[in-house]
């Protein structure tokens, strides 16, 4: 318990540090939200200045940061100039969509990677080589390229809807149809993400399994006449868990950041498009919120991995 | 300080997280003599060796080698599985000359000559000086480790179970080598082992350790003839039970 509390405290300190850095970096980028307006000849410079003053741009950096921090504590999480309102609800709205996409993709990727990795590890020889070549190929293809190719296919064949989370008339449909509609929209972006994640996961599962399969205790268990199935699931897999848990923590950690690019390219209404917009428009508050959220997930992922490992590996949990 | 107390250990104590490993250990070893440090696993032999060699700092007490606290390089320690402590890609010459290189004792040409001399001393042909370590057998690698330990002429040599776990024939050969070297070069050395018979082959005196203390310290003959402590008798009885007839 004390361990968890300590980790949470560190996490909060880390997040505070990230927020300071992010704020500072976004200041380093030239211009601000009103720069675009300044270029527009129809708007008087005095009006722009007045708006800037109202937004608080004249105040020194630390003061502006403090203002943002206060807003966070209030629950607003900053004020978006573009949307003219608190950032909190905006981000929350999109967060759900991103988690749905990234979460289902990660879950599916792991679900596929474990049996694939085990299968790879148990079949040496040409099947293993072929499988590894295939995974390497998938690894090389950039997510962006994959997304575009998939989009093209979707447009050509018309089997899957392109872009957005639901069809225009979705609200009027009964529950099950709405759900089906959602799943149809989810398929393509999720598939792209899964294909992107799969090769690395499979390789790691395979490597972890190979290591335990070559161990002395595996040989000892075989010498006792234990059947291969039981050997695999009751003896080998539990021992292979250690490196995989760390990887799993990383999966959770990168849950947000992994899907951002795919969302933008494939039109999934999650945090990705929101972030890109905000960056282009210099809407600092939104950028801050999304970056902080990403950082929070990374920290959470690490913590989850540590706690899981603590639970699963007796060498850590029980001091000899 | 005469030759008597060349190595003096006084009141050495060390605990690891509340658990005492050494309890006020004191003894002296004359120059040129070999001490066998014997005891069951967990009795503190390795901890004592590491404190003397300077790898660990004792909590209390002092170690004096030639009337001064030991400086790096004064005491050389050879571990169990010494063969594994050699970089397999290095040549024999490079491995053996390493202490000289590290302490900058002489020119590279001098290093090579010294290394070749030492190879011969430990029974490896001079011509093998440029052979890589992985090309040597386990026993030969053991010899390389010994040459490396002795090339800079340390004041004290400590062997920590270096002979345990070796094939029995190899063990006998290395034992013979060590005994010869000790006699010829008048090495001051400590041999840590749990095998009393092995200790007797090389050492003049034997100290028996139990739970962090030295419970008996006598010349090898005295110890074997008339052991005083129960632990000594126990070890003797076990060693005798395992020895072949005629040992």
């Amino acid at each position, binding site marked *: 318990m004390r361990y968890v509390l300590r980790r949470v405290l560190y996490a909060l300190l880390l997040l505070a540090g990230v927020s300071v850095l992010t704020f500072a970096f976004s200041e380093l980028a030239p211009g601000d939200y009103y720069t675009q307006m300044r270029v527009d000849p129809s708007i008087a410079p005095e009006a722009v200045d007045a708006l800037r003053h109202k937004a608080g741009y004249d105040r020194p950096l630390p003061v502006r940061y403090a203002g943002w921090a206060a807003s966070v504590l209030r629950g607003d999480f900053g004020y978006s100039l573009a949307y003219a309102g608190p950032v909190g609800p905006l981000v929350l709205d999109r967060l759900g969509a991103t988690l749905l996409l990234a979460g289902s993709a990660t879950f599916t990727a792991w679900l596929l990677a474990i049996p694939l990795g085990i299968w790879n590890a148990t079949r040496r020889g040409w099947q293993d080589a072929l499988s590894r070549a295939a995974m390497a190929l998938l690894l090389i293809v950039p997510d962006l390229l994959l997304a575009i190719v998939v989009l093209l296919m979707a447009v050509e064949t018309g089997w899957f809807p392109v872009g957005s989370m639901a069809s225009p008339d979705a609200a009027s449909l009964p529950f099950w149809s709405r759900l089906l509609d959602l799943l149809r929209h989810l398929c393509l972006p999720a598939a792209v993400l899964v294909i992107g994640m799969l090769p690395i996961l499979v390789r790691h599962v395979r490597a972890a399994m190979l290591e335990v399969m070559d161990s002395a205790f595996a040989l000892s*268990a075989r010498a*006792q006449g*234990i059947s291969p199935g039981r050997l695999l699931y009751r003896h080998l897999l539990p021992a292979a868990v250690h490196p995989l848990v760390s990887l799993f923590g990383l999966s959770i950690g990168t849950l947000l950041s992994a899907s951002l690019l795919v969302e933008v390219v494939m039109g999934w209404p999650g945090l990705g498009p929101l972030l890109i917009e905000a960056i282009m428009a210099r809407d600092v508050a939104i950028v801050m919120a999304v970056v902080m959220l990403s950082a929070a997930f990374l920290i959470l992922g690490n913590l989850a991995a540590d706690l899981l490992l603590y639970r699963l590996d007796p060498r850590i949990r029980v001091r000899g | 300080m005469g030759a008597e107390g060349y190595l003096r250990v006084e009141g050495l104590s060390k605990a690891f997280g509340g658990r005492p490993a050494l309890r006020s250990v004191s003894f002296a070893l004359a120059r040129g003599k070999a001490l066998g440090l014997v005891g069951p696993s967990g009795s503190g032999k390795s901890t004592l060796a590491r404190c003397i060699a300077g790898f660990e700092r004792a909590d209390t007490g002092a170690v004096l080698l030639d009337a001064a606290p030991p400086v790096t390089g004064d005491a050389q320690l050879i571990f169990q599985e010494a063969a594994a402590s050699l970089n397999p890609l290095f040549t024999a010459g490079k491995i053996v000359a390493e202490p000289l290189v590290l302490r900058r004792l002489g020119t590279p040409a001098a290093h090579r000559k010294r290394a070749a001399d030492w190879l011969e001393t430990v029974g490896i042909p001079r011509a093998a000086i440029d052979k890589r370590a992985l090309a040597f057998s386990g026993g030969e690698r053991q010899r390389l480790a010994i040459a490396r330990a002795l090339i800079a002429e340390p004041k004290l040599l400590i062997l920590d179970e270096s002979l345990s776990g070796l094939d029995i024939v190899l*063990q006998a050969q290395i034992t013979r080598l060590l005994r010869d070297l000790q006699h010829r070069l008048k090495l001051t050395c400590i041999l840590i082992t*749990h095998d009393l*018979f092995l200790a007797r082959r090389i050492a003049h005196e034997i100290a028996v350790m139990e739970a962090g203390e030295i419970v008996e310290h006598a010349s090898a003959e005295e110890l074997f003839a008339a052991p005083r402590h129960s632990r000594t008798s*126990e070890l003797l009885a076990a060693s005798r039970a395992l020895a072949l007839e005629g040992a």
Partner: protein
Amino acid sequence: MSEPLLEVRDLRVSHSSIVLDGVSFTIQPRSTAGLFGESGSGKTTLALVILGLLAAERYRISGSVRLRGRELVGLGERELRQVRGAAISMVFQDPMLALNPVLQAAVQVREAMRAHAGDAPVEPLFELVGLDPSRRMLRAYPHQLSGGERQRVTIAQALACRPSLVIADEPFTALDVLRVVELAKLFEDLKRKTGTSFLIISHSPSILARLADEVIVLHSGRIVEQGPPARVFRSPADPYTIGVMEALADGR
């Protein structure tokens, strides 16, 4: 004389080079055989090939290994699994490595039992090998046990299904002299209580002299000498054995 328990005839194993070169010997029921060999002699390969644990793709095996008349060489994996643990079992050299680090010791013994003998309490087995079946012992993970306890756990695994033959690969090598005596007593005890035959592999003649009824000397993949230990070690006939005994005597 009764039928031998294990009969090995002209066993040849090769890989990139010859590991075993025509090995022949027998082991009688209720007896202890000692295998003397240094590293590189092929002793561990011999143990593994008897149990059919050598990777078939990488090794070429010929010759005969008969267990009570039944040929083991060439048996399929499924049949071999019936033999492993049930008729012949093995105690591996390093108990720390031979035990699964994430499973409790008692669970691993139970798993060994389940392979052929179904579910049964492990306590009697623990007592048989001299382990106190306390709560601590039954719930412990391998890293929480002492070296000696770990070794007894692996011995318990080997005995779990009451095999006729137990092969022990260098069980004494890592032990100090007091533990060696303890373990030797345990083996004598087990031999008496269970009637199991043992094949003890060791490079220590003194231990084999104490425990074995019959000693086999293995050198570079060949058996150069066999017989009662007193004869083999005291009056060796083969040059290799003579060399070994001389080297040992010389050191004293």
